[in-house]
């Protein structure tokens, strides 16, 4: 695998990664588009509206069929949030040209569509089509409402809301229903012009070979969008929690409770502890030999899943498990105990096992163009030194048990959120 970064003066960065083994090509374009709830709602609506049509393909059916003609190229436009920043991402994945059966230029066609989606929106008398806009608004409202359909995701969503309630600049990725409902086509068009004029842009291209058309694409995009400043996503400040655990319980007629333990996490992407933190996650919860899996699930038989996710941009971590109501207190006590025990040290054996497991996972990542693109995009968006997954893998060798303990000591549980099942529900 080879990578190169072209840091352009115009604020549009291009990273190109090539590996001869790749059968597919991924191109992603990310904009760092502001903070807060309004930006989140605008960003979510904008990605929906733009991916529905463009000047060349003015309707959903035309765009979808054009993508099918390019051997089912996949266009994904969605809005993500990194810490406090909202990031609309436009991504297209397709087969490499060598798999074309009829000499279709798949890569060229995909780059044309991606450019058109971003830079040539379908406007009616200088505005977004009212019908398309309203339809996307309804789709977005449904997407926000449907978060409850996945119980553990919903619990994580609600727990994050509660953990970040003190920070007015924080927003979940879609914004609130109220804000979405209030937005007009003109609001989102203004947001679009602001994004393409000012937002820092990162382009990532992953393919089997260094294709000259990606440079043409970057140049054309830069020409159209114009100069802008460089920038990176904004993380939340670390906030020291109080000494007492806080608690919130919400009810839903489900058979299994979802327990979330929210923690403050003292650290960030630039503290030089990336490898230590990755190993902490593996030893604590990500691996089938992890502390949580072995104790909460295997020894005490309290749950089917028990894991944790770091929200490093928010300086938080959430531990979550699906448990029977009658076992909830026991599970919570064990999770807190295991979180504390991590501060006392990790064995050389578990460190070594988890190091190998992570290295294996990183190798798998390198086999996937899509995961590789996400790796480099994230490093770009955080303004981190551009190193390859292989280099990160090598850095894991330097991690000592003390380094993992250092990460563990920066993690403080302080909030419990429970999505509580209704006891009347029959199993």
């Amino acid at each position: 695998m080879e990578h190169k970064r072209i840091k352009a003066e115009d604020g549009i960065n291009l990273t190109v990664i090539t590996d001869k083994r790749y059968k597919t090509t991924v191109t992603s374009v990310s904009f760092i588009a502001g903070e807060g709830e309004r930006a989140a709602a605008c960003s979510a609506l904008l990605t929906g509206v733009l991916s529905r049509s463009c000047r060349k393909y003015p309707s959903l059916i035309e765009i979808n069929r054009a993508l099918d003609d390019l051997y089912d190229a996949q266009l994904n436009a969605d809005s993500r949030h990194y810490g406090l920043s909202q990031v609309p991402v436009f991504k297209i994945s397709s087969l490499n040209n060598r798999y074309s059966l009829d000499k279709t230029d798949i890569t060229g066609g995909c780059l044309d569509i991606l450019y058109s989606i971003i830079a040539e929106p379908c406007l009616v008398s200088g505005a977004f089509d009212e019908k398309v806009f309203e339809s996307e608004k309804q789709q977005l409202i449904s997407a926000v409402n449907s978060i409850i359909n996945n119980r553990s995701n919903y619990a994580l969503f609600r727990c994050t809301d509660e953990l970040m309630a003190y920070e007015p600049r924080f927003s979940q990725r879609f914004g609130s229903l109220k804000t979405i409902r209030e937005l007009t086509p003109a609001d989102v068009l203004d947001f679009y012009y602001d994004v393409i004029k000012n937002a820092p842009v990162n382009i990532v291209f992953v393919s089997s070979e260094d294709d000259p058309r990606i440079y043409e694409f970057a140049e054309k995009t830069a020409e159209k969008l114009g100069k802008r400043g460089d920038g990176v996503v904004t993380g939340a400040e670390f906030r020291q929690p109080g000494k007492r655990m806080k608690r919130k319980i919400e009810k839903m007629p489900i058979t299994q409770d979802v327990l979330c333990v929210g923690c403050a996490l003292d650290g960030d992407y630039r503290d030089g502890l990336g490898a230590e933190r990755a190993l902490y996650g593996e030893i604590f919860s990500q691996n089938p030999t992890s502390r949580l899996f072995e104790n909460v699930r295997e020894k005490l038989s309290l749950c089917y899943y028990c894991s944790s996710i770091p929200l490093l941009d928010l300086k938080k971590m959430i531990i979550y498990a699906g448990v029977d109501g009658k076992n909830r207190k026991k599970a919570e006590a064990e999770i807190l105990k295991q979180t504390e025990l991590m501060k006392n040290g990790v064995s050389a054996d578990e460190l070594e096992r988890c190091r190998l497991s992570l290295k294996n996972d990183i190798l798998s990542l390198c086999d996937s163009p899509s995961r590789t693109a996400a790796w480099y995009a994230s490093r770009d968006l955080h303004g981190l030194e551009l190193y390859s997954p292989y280099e990160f893998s090598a850095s894991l060798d330097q991690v000592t048990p003390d380094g993992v303990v250092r990460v563990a000591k920066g993690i403080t549980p302080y909030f419990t959120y429970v999505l509580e099942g209704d006891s009347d529900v029959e199993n």
Partner: protein
Amino acid sequence: MKTEIKEHFDRITQEKYYSFRHKSGVSVLVSPNAYSTASAIYTSDYGGSDVSFTYNGKRYDTPRGIAHFLEHKLFETEDGGDAFKLFSKFGADSNAFTSHRATSYTFTSTVGDFYESLKILLDFVHHPHFTEASVSKERGIIAEELKMYDDNPDNRCYYELMKCLYKNNNVRYDVGGTLDSIKEITPELLYFCHRVFYSPDNMSLIVSGDVDIKKITDIMDKTVPAIRGGRVVKLKVTEPEKAYKKLSVTETEVSSPLFGFGIKDKMTVSKKLTRRKSVALSVLADMLLGESSEFFCKNYESGLLTGGCDVGYSCAGDHAYLSVFGESEKPFTVKKRIVNVLEKALSEGIDRYEFERCKKIFYSNFIYSTQNSHSVAHTLLSFYQSGDDLTKYPALLSGVNADFALECLRELYKKERTAFAVVKPKNKEEK
């Protein structure tokens, strides 16, 4: 006896694999490739649907969920440890999964550590260790897993549709069993079912990666037990041609109604015809109802459909059906429109160019499914389980045409074979 190794190769995609039967009776498929990791899947032909069978001539009816219970319990080793720990010494990522027709154990590791991990895989699957205490403990974990799926509205919608389509086929039941049925599972039953279904001649090994076949067979020679299983016959159920129930409406905590529309298909005797039909109906279903269809785009734009639509034709051993799953505030209106699309296609015919365009989607999906060692292994397993050759898929796809697909749809679509399942919020009716 010399092992006969057969090479399978597709000229268009350059996909290649080798197949042979190991002397123990295990069927082996190896796909050589240059990915950074290597994967193996060891599968017993014993799944959640196999509750009734004869073994050496005697009939057995077992509680639901044993195959899945075994999947959980086999990881436990005799010394009280578990196979996860053994794999983790080599950094291998191990897992297992149970379907209605089979149970699989898998790992992905670096190419260098592949052979050590393979020894672990082939060993632990053949060395069960169950006690009353450990079975009781696992019951608690599995109960939580079942509850998790029960709380999942998509899962509920899928099984509600299966319960409508099928009267007797076990595909209508959750692979993992029920909270009651798992209470009946004992160490003795687990040992018995392991003996019946985990003999080498009932197993397959799929390997993908930069590996050496000779080394694999050497490890198999030393690890796979030289035992022949008894005579097992899975008891087939008879299934009426028409759907068992036309409609199911379930209420749960869900944002807006989810729906599943299905058409139950008759199984075809000829395997070759089944393969062609399966490919043709998959393409046609996508063309008529998938994301580039007029049906989807119009109904998405109008807001009738929320999000995507999951359309497909599924054919797995003893059952086959066409299905459409999605989300809509007006599921019954969607159902009417699905039926209209199908009936219009049958009365007016279909566009041949559109059909050829949709074939590109399936060709692309095939290439995507061979993008890393893990997905190659899973794709190979899926083809193997259907009795198909992965390398023949591109030619098979290329060979189906619109006329044949329409003929298949004509045979499939009968009103009495259709069913509809809705999972909706409480007290919410379609206006």
